[in-house]
């Protein structure tokens, strides 16, 4: 990629420069837009670039700053995963179904971040309807991993992770239903946070599995995540599952010392399937935490190995219902000359949805259907309870759980597309937090054969401040999060 270098690459750094008048938002936005354009053919991270609107917003931010009305994030460019509805902007969710869908409204997350002064560069590529772990299911083509463009960036927030890793966006929104923030963050060597279920509004975020979906961030650093999370969190009267609870000052909590922090290692995460080099990086990261004063003990979550099968009942069940609204009547793809009503539905949906989305809709339809509901859906909800209880028990004795985010580093594009089960097992370490509604993070902790490895942190409900603090202290000791793929430096 040949594009202008950046004056700084973290949100915190950019914000400091803006505050000090070293650069303007328009300058930053122009620089990032140039990088977006230069990288697009290689990475395919963006579906839509809103250059004109971004420059106008940047100019407005600069004017606000000149008028003394700037806050910390005023003028900082970011980008949104294309699952968030953005008013008057194409919102595709990575699907042919919504290839022409222009949202008439803003998601709460989008509105809140805009109100905080951020500048939206555009909409990021993703797995179709967030269903995938490799970003290969997007109707707009796969996103490539900036560390090795033959490899996947992870998914479903692959566009968000690749964009931040390549520094073509300082930070990006993302969503996580079974690991869709943490796994791509790990595979792209960036920081990802999935907050507690209900911490961030789901209004305007196109639903995949409503009881698991949660909006979050992919950033360079934990400090950046703390700055943005405060702005996007909070109670939303439009979302019945949004929790009415004060948002703490995440930035203020970043520097607290880690002495006395009790870390749990989930035994089941280290038992099998974890790549040896990845495990080595994880162990090294844990050693850093011990050096920082944390104590480490092993805990057991015996039902956690059942999280993937549980998820592949619950998530498809919810998705089969959530995606029923795409019927070719009010919005979205409609087939040519439908013969009758059923033809309209079946062909519009058959043509508009990709293979993986159809697979999940059918799986979900099956597990909810008469005669199978109890055996699959209710059974899975019971196991979900057991998994939740395992976590609750673990948090009686530890503050945070640490472990791998993903069993391997980024795999090659095409390697797993024909084998859904193998693909699904990518999320073996991340799904548990979604089932239990817990916050989780992934932070870069080194490389295996030149590819990034991520460490996962999982905390009790609403422990984002503690988690960000733990991640930040680690990032003060290390510089893995500041490494940039050579081609994008």
């Amino acid at each position, binding site marked *: 990629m040949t594009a202008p270098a950046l004056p700084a690459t973290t949100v915190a750094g950019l914000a400091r420069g803006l505050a000090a008048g070293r650069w303007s938002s328009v300058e930053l936005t122009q620089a990032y837009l140039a990088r977006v354009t230069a990288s697009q053919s290689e990475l395919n991270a963006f579906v839509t670039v809103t250059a004109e609107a971004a420059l106008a917003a940047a100019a407005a931010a600069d004017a606000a700053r000149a008028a003394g009305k700037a806050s910390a994030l005023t003028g900082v460019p970011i980008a949104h995963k294309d699952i968030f509805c953005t008013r008057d902007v194409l919102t595709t969710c990575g699907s042919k179904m*919504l290839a022409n869908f222009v949202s008439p409204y803003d998601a709460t997350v989008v509105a809140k971040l805009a109100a905080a002064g951020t500048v939206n560069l555009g909409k990021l590529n993703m797995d179709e309807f967030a269903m995938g772990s490799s970003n290969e299911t997007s109707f707009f083509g796969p996103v490539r991993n900036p560390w090795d463009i033959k490899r996947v960036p992870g998914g479903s927030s692959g566009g968000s992770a690749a964009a931040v890793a390549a520094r073509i966006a300082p930070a990006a929104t993302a969503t996580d239903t079974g690991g869709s923030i943490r796994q791509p963050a790990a595979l792209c060597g960036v920081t990802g946070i999935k907050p507690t279920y209900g911490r961030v509004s789901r209004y305007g975020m196109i639903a995949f599995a409503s*009881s698991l979906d949660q909006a979050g961030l992919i950033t360079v650093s934990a400090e950046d995540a703390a700055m943005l999370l405060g702005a996007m969190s909070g109670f939303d009267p439009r979302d*019945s*599952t949004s929790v009415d609870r004060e948002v703490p000052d995440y930035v203020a909590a970043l520097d607290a010392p880690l002495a006395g922090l009790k870390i749990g290692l989930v035994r089941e995460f280290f038992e099998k399937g974890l790549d040896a080099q990845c495990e080595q990086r994880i162990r090294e990261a844990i050693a850093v935490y011990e050096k920082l004063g944390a104590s480490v003990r092993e805990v057991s979550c015996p039902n956690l190995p059942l999280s993937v099968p549980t998820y592949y009942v619950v998530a498809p069940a919810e998705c089969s219902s959530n995606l029923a*609204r795409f019927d070719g009547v*009010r*919005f979205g793809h409609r087939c040519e000359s439908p013969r009758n*009503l059923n033809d309209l539905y079946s062909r519009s949906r058959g043509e508009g949805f990709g293979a993986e989305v159809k697979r999940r809709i059918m799986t979900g339809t099956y597990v909810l259907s008469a005669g199978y509901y109890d055996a699959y859906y209710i059974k899975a909800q019971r196991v979900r309870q057991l998994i939740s209880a395992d976590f609750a028990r673990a948090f009686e004795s530890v503050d945070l759980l640490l472990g791998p985010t993903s069993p391997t580093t980024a795999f090659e594009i095409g390697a797993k597309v024909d084998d859904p089960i193998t693909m699904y097992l990518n999320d073996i370490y991340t799904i548990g937090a979604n089932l239990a509604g817990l916050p989780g993070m992934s932070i870069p902790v080194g490389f295996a054969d030149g590819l990034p490895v991520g460490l996962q942190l999982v905390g009790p409900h609403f422990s984002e401040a503690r988690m960000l603090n733990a991640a930040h202290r680690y990032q003060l000791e290390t510089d893995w999060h500041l490494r940039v793929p050579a081609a994008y430096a």
Partner: protein
Amino acid sequence: MEWETVIGLEIHAQLATRSKIFSSSATAYGAAPNTQANLVDLGYPGVLPVLNAEAVRMAVRFGLAIGARIARHSVFARKNYFYPDLPKGYQISQYELPIVAEGALEIVLDDGTRKRVGITRAHLEEDAGKSLHEGLPGVSGIDLNRAGTPLIEIVSEPDLRSAKEAVAYMKKVHTLVRYLEICDGNMQEGSFRCDANVSVRPKGQEKFGTRAEIKNLNSFRFVEKAINYEIERQIELIESGGKVVQETRLYDPDKGETRSMRSKEEANDYRYFPDPDLLPVELDESFIDVVRAALPELPDEKAARFVREYQLPEYDAGVLTASRELGAFYEEVVRRVGSEPKLCANWVMGDLAAFLNKDNLEIGNSKVDAAGLALLVARIVDQTISGKIAKDVFEAMWESGESADAIIERKGLRQITDTSAIERAIEEVMSKNPGQLADYRSGKDKLFGFFVGQVMKATGGKANPAQLNELLKQKLAG
């Protein structure tokens, strides 16, 4: 063979909230297509439902009024199926854990006996939109204004044994929801409608027959006709060796018959599951107590009080408590007249009801108000006019809007109570009809009526009837 009919009704009553059950768009009837359908009602990607407090309060109000169990914990579920009037591809309803369960209502049968009809459950759900076909060749137009209007679905036990019982029960519920002010009860606009599950079985058999469900009946007349048609159809079918199939049928009022619904032919598998976008509804005692404290006097309580307080026959009490407004009107008339509650009842149920009916008006829009009617009745009671003259006065009041007194004065209808004047009129009639007088005196008592009529005619109907009777008897006796 003798057959017994078994009927259960599922009544859908639209709740009279201002906004929809899960969105803040208006529920008003009759707006231009899709002008009251917001992003939530349209099922746009990314939108979420938030429950309307008033809908919950109204459901609880209904539950308390039928003596039901109010669920402290109820859950919304998704009922999944594809239909153009159902924007999300699922209806948000309640399935395993409804807000109201196990209540009952009493209906009065033709022979005057009372029958308890069990109500299995009443749950909250959202209404669907409408498909329009007229003027659109080959296509249907979808209007989603109605989508998301709150409904309470009231499911009866299969306790009803005839179309008449079904109608009596439906009327009872209709009266109740209007008393409770939770539904406007407008059946033409679809605010109150029902599905009827109908089956027949040989008399004495325990096991239910196979039932057919007749969808979307929106008048009492249709309910009666559709059920009766369906009963006959099923009996004929079985007696001719056929079998009733479990299916959904539609009543065609033009042809007066039910027919199988083609669109619902495919066996539905609704795949109900708890809606993850909504949390369980948890009601505490204080919420329920507040709703209970605000309950109005219910129809049965009011009818019993009318019998007790006004010594009305049960029938009259039932008619006068058919709506809260009618009961209030009646009580206002009685209060103003200060006596003769039965006479007041006769006027409200008789002439007033007839004129309302003629002009197709509700009691709230009556051209004669309670004060006006009370004055008229008072003029009967104080003998200013007779009951018969009062009927003419009432008609004049209805047409002109004038008071009873003004009409009596203007038309000179004041009753003649002066004995000598009545006697003069009697004497005149006697002298004009010597033949009839002779016949009467020779024993033809029936001619008494003739003389009453003649004297009334001569006095322009104004002679006081009681005095006339008395004086006529004396004079005729000679």
